[in-house]
């Protein structure tokens, strides 16, 4: 974290666009999932712990949003990037430091519900950018088809395929640049010197319970409720005994 909000936002947007490539365009190692991307963005923004709290929350909430067929799911990487940037901006504006007794994790838990409320509608822009890139890629296909000529066909196809990667990256980077900086700026001015919002912990608990319900729905098997309840009861008993 440089301390310059604009520079930070550009850097976060660049990293966010790179992580977004993993969703569809390249690798699919799940590095773009909130559980991974949010701590990375948190680290770049100045608080890896805050990123982890955002990541766990979003991972639970979005576990069931699957990219099947032509359906483009909600942009979980974009949401993780924006929610983390907003959370860390709020924590920094409040003057919470890593060794503050209140602590980064405890504060982030209170900020996350607010960050989600703000980020959820804005994250639609990332899905829109993703859809635009997918539309533009049809043009690349037609150009590639025309290019298959004598001798050089094989080499050209790899190149054209990688142009698609550039299109995905450019679309997402532009969308991040247009959203991350303004939201970080607004958050900083709103939270500057704000009192620690302790009551927001109940909202965080509500979000986590919704996340567990969403994840359980995503698991989608017949005996899941029974296994879920048995595991929870077993853990409760074990923790009481131990």
């Amino acid at each position, binding site marked *: 974290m440089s301390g310059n909000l604009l520079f930070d936002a550009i850097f976060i947007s660049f990293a966010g666009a790179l992580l977004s490539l993993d969703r*569809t*365009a*390249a690798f*699919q*190692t*799940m590095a773009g999932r909130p*559980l*991974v991307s949010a701590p990375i963005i948190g680290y770049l923004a100045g608080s890896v712990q805050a990123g*982890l709290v955002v*990541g*766990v929350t979003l*991972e*639970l909430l979005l*576990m*069931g949003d*699957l990219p099947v067929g*032509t359906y483009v799911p909600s942009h979980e990487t974009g949401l993780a990037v924006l929610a983390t940037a907003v959370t860390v901006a709020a924590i920094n504006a409040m003057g919470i430091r890593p060794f503050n007794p209140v602590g980064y994790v*405890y504060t982030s838990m209170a900020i996350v*519900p607010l960050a989600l*409320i703000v980020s959820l509608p804005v994250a639609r822009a990332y899905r829109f950018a993703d859809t635009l890139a*997918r*539309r533009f*890629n049809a043009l690349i*296909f037609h150009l*590639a088809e025309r290019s*298959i000529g*004598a001798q050089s*066909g*094989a080499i050209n*196809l*790899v190149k*054209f*395929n990688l142009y*698609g*990667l550039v299109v995905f990256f450019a679309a997402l980077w532009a969308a991040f640049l247009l959203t991350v900086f303004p939201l970080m700026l607004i958050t900083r001015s709103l939270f500057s010197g704000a009192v620690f*919002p302790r*009551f927001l912990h*109940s*909202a965080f*608990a*509500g979000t986590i319970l*919704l996340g*567990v*319900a969403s994840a359980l*729905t*995503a*698991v989608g098997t017949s*005996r*899941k*409720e029974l*296994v*879920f*309840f*048995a*595991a*929870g*009861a077993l*853990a*409760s008993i074990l*923790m009481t005994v131990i």
Partner: protein
Amino acid sequence: MISKKSFLKVFIGSFFIQAAWSFEKMQTLGFAAAISPAIKDVFKDDAQSGNLAMRRHMSFYNAHPYMASPVLGAAIKLEEAGMRGECPVDNALRFRSRVMAPLSAIGDLFFWGALRPLASCAGILAALIWGLWGPVVFLAVYNVFHISARWFGLKKGYALGEAVIGFVTSLALPRWGARARLASAFMLGFFLAYGIRLSLNMADVRALAPSSIAFAAALVLVAVFSLLLKRGWKVAGLVYLATIPLIIIGVLFF
């Protein structure tokens, strides 16, 4: 036989199968680009036939991205056989078209529907217990299967040709998927109970609410949210429903 270098290029190319994904042609360009080093190798003495083969592979293709690997391997094998005149030259294309839908279904069900939730649940639980090791656990659990599927899928596809479908079926992925989903449900239950215990310790209210009572209360809320999700409510809408009233109550009374 294609060279080891070409095989490796196809393997690397399989990671970019969706690089130029479009609504119109989906993974077609990615598949053609991934197979192109092998085609170049197979038809190195006959560039014209190589170009014709490339044109054939520019016809529509879309499946689960990891399932492209066995298809790529088998398609290379069939192109080699076609080049030697052992089967019709468009056999690879026919094979591709035939297996797209069933492999998509198997891949979506196992990787998206079972393995990813399993890795997510393991990662979330690990994050609660060990903090930053959570994302590492998530990536490790997921990618052991993911990378293996890509590498062995390609190898088996190239070794077995069309018979690779029998090999994929013999793996019984739907059965393993069902087990993975049960394991995910188990980890979620453990996560909830352990999370409640941690929050009660953090807020120092254990005397007021023992963890078993808090767990029961949490179960009721999870059941209500699950019911609403099953009835078609969107997660985003429920986030507002679950948080905004609590924030308003907090602002008014605390």
